[in-house]
């Protein structure tokens, strides 16, 4: 089974790939190929977004303006956010869904294979629009990734390009989600009941529902910006009877579920990795499913905690404060279940487990700062400071990104048929973990002391914290090059991986050869 993509002898002409080279990738409808495309795309965008982050930290290394004009700095922060959220994290999780969902539920492919191809190939043009927008007159949008009005209704043509990019990515995301839901609901192997599905599949099912509910709302919001900008409507224009605060409500109705879109599949990956390396089944499987669903439902009624300072009645502030705090309960259920899974397990700490443990530890810290920010009077003090920046990087980098790394190290031997270099993987983990904290921990202090976010210059008392953060960021950025090396080396020349790579691994994907043949589960397995 060394020939990963051999199609001889499969006898399915309709599914066989007829092209080679680049055309194979452009025309592919195979879920494994498309999963690979998603992962390569998101890794590329991760480095583009990372480069912008390096630009931000370079300017903040010292007080004063050394490298960029303030306008360009704002473009850097905006595009860093947009590219990391829509270009790196979300497509990476969709890549995992493409590779893993059919293999884990015993389906031969995704439900709508051609639509799957299309939803991937919409992404590169959208990413190109975002990157090209740096070079149009006025530069890229500098309104922040939240695109608040009236900034976003005043920017140059770069804003229009960003709006079109979001439209395209939203459409791609909706199609991808429809595909995932349909595959999970209709194409499970006989005997694979919903409550027997691996938790990764469960989290993606719930995430896909979230995406279908919120991406159209974002599309609506940016469409309203577009018509306000060019077609004389006044949705957000105070002079014409609109209201800029309305945009914040519409945006965060999308935006808060969106942050769970970026973390729930990560919960799923960690829920696969932790039992494997604890050599115990997952503790509290059904409570994990219910907790995931609860988080998803609650995420629709907390959005205004992002906008406590724009003015709302005290009753509304209390409502959004309490519902936000309520989310800590199902999240706590998850964290305790992971720890209970590890309890008295025979633990080993290969790279996926290291990243999963790092995830649990650092994500929980980000969760706690989130609870602090949920408190209205504290939030009014900390709104738009570096404390908020520290908070969401703890949940997005140490949360989403570390769970993605855990997933890549966990399943890469299955995907490629080769083992990665365990020593280098551990180096990658420890350097990432240390430099992540060096970068973002001091931001808590800078924020508590009052340093505002999205500003290229700062008062002298923040100089030390910022230099530590910047040096940590450069280290974090360089550490990610190890990851690229490990992946390339694994694909090209790693040692042969066993079919069941990890001793404690459970699930249908581990009953397949490593690497799996191009078409799997054409005869569905029977799950007892």
């Amino acid at each position, binding site marked *: 089974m060394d020939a990963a993509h051999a199609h001889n002898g499969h006898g399915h002409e309709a599914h066989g790939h007829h092209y080679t080279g680049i055309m194979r990738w452009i025309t592919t409808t195979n879920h494994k190929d498309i999963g690979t495309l998603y992962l390569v795309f998101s890794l590329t965008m991760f480095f583009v977004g990372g480069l912008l982050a390096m630009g931000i930290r370079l300017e903040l290394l010292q007080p004063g303006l050394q490298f960029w004009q303030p306008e360009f700095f704002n473009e850097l922060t905006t595009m860093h956010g947009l590219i990391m959220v829509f270009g790196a994290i979300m497509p990476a999780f969709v890549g995992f869904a493409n590779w893993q969902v059919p293999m884990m539920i015993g389906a031969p492919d995704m439900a709508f294979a051609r639509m799957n191809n299309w939803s991937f190939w919409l992404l590169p043009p959208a990413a190109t629009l975002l990157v090209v927008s740096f070079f149009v007159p006025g530069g890229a949008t500098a309104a922040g990734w939240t695109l608040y009005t009236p900034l976003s209704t005043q920017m140059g043509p770069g804003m229009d390009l960003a709006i079109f990019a979001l439209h395209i990515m939203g459409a791609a995301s909706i199609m991808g989600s429809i595909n995932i839901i349909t595959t999970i609901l209709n194409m499970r192997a006989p005997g694979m009941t919903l409550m027997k599905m691996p938790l990764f599949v469960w989290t993606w099912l719930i995430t896909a529902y979230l995406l279908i*509910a919120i991406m*159209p709302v974002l599309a609506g919001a940016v469409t309203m910006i577009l018509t306000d900008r060019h077609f004389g409507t006044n949705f957000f224009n105070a002079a014409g009877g609109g209201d800029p605060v309305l945009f914040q409500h519409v945006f965060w*109705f999308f935006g808060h579920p969106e942050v769970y879109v970026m973390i729930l599949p990560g919960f799923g990956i960690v829920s696969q990795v932790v039992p494997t390396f604890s050599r115990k089944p997952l503790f509290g499987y059904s409570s994990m499913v219910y907790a995931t669903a609860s988080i998803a439902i609650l995420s629709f009624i907390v959005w205004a905690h992002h906008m406590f300072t724009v003015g709302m009645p005290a009753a509304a502030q209390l409502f959004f404060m309490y519902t936000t705090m309520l989310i800590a309960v199902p999240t706590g259920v998850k964290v305790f279940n992971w720890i209970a899974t590890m309890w008295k397990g025979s633990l080993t700490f290969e790279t996926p487990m290291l990243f999963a443990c790092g995830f649990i530890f650092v994500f929980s810290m980000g969760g706690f700062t989130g609870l602090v920010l949920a408190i209205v009077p504290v939030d009014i003090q900390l709104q738009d400071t570096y404390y908020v920046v520290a908070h969401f990087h703890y949940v997005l980098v140490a949360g989403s990104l570390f769970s993605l790394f855990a997933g890549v190290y966990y399943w890469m031997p299955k995907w490629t048929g080769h083992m990665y270099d365990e020593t280098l993987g551990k180096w990658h983990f420890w350097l990432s973990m240390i430099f992540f904290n060096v970068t973002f921990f001091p931001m808590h202090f800078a924020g508590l002391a009052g340093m505002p976010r999205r500003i290229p210059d700062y008062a002298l008392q923040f100089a030390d914290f910022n230099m530590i953060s910047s040096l940590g960021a450069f280290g974090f950025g360089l550490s990610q090059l190890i990851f690229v090396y490990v992946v390339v080396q694994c694909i090209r020349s790693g040692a042969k991986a066993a079919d069941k790579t990890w001793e404690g691994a459970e699930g249908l994907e581990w009953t397949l050869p490593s690497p799996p043949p191009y078409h799997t589960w054409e005869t569905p397995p029977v799950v007892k």
Partner: protein
Amino acid sequence: MVSNAQANQRTLAKLLVVAAVMFGFGFAMVPFYRAICDALGLNSVIKADAVANTQVDAARLLTVEFDTNLRSGLPWTFTPLEKSVRIHPGALTQVTFEIRNHSDRAVTGQAIPSYGPPQAARYFKKLDCFCFTQQTLAPGEIKRMPVVFVIEKDLPQDVNTITLSYTFFEVEGKSKKAG
């Protein structure tokens, strides 16, 4: 797979309906937001306030300052005829503002008021204001416009000065047609 194809099509159709409904929901939030603001009395700064029978608190004197701003390159000048007034809470007061169009085209603008300190806003009742409607000025036209207001006497004791700040925004959709 063939037996699945129809079931998949049905699921696809249902999910597309959900996506379409949610796209509509994004736009439905616009009237919904207005309705909530009206119901709760929020954001009603450019509507006439109803004032109940008020008594003048002659023992207390407040300073009301007027501030004027222009946005979006509006080719106007905009000034209050008095920079500030000293009044008693509860007293009906009228002040006048002047706008002048310096350009050779008709321009429509909308004024948006704001208050400093913000907590004074709910005690500042405007009975008449040029901000209740859009103002259109012919080329070179000068217009004097009144603001009639009452400050309710239960204004917190620690507020002695209120700044009423108006910003005129150009209403672009209108001026393009007019010009």
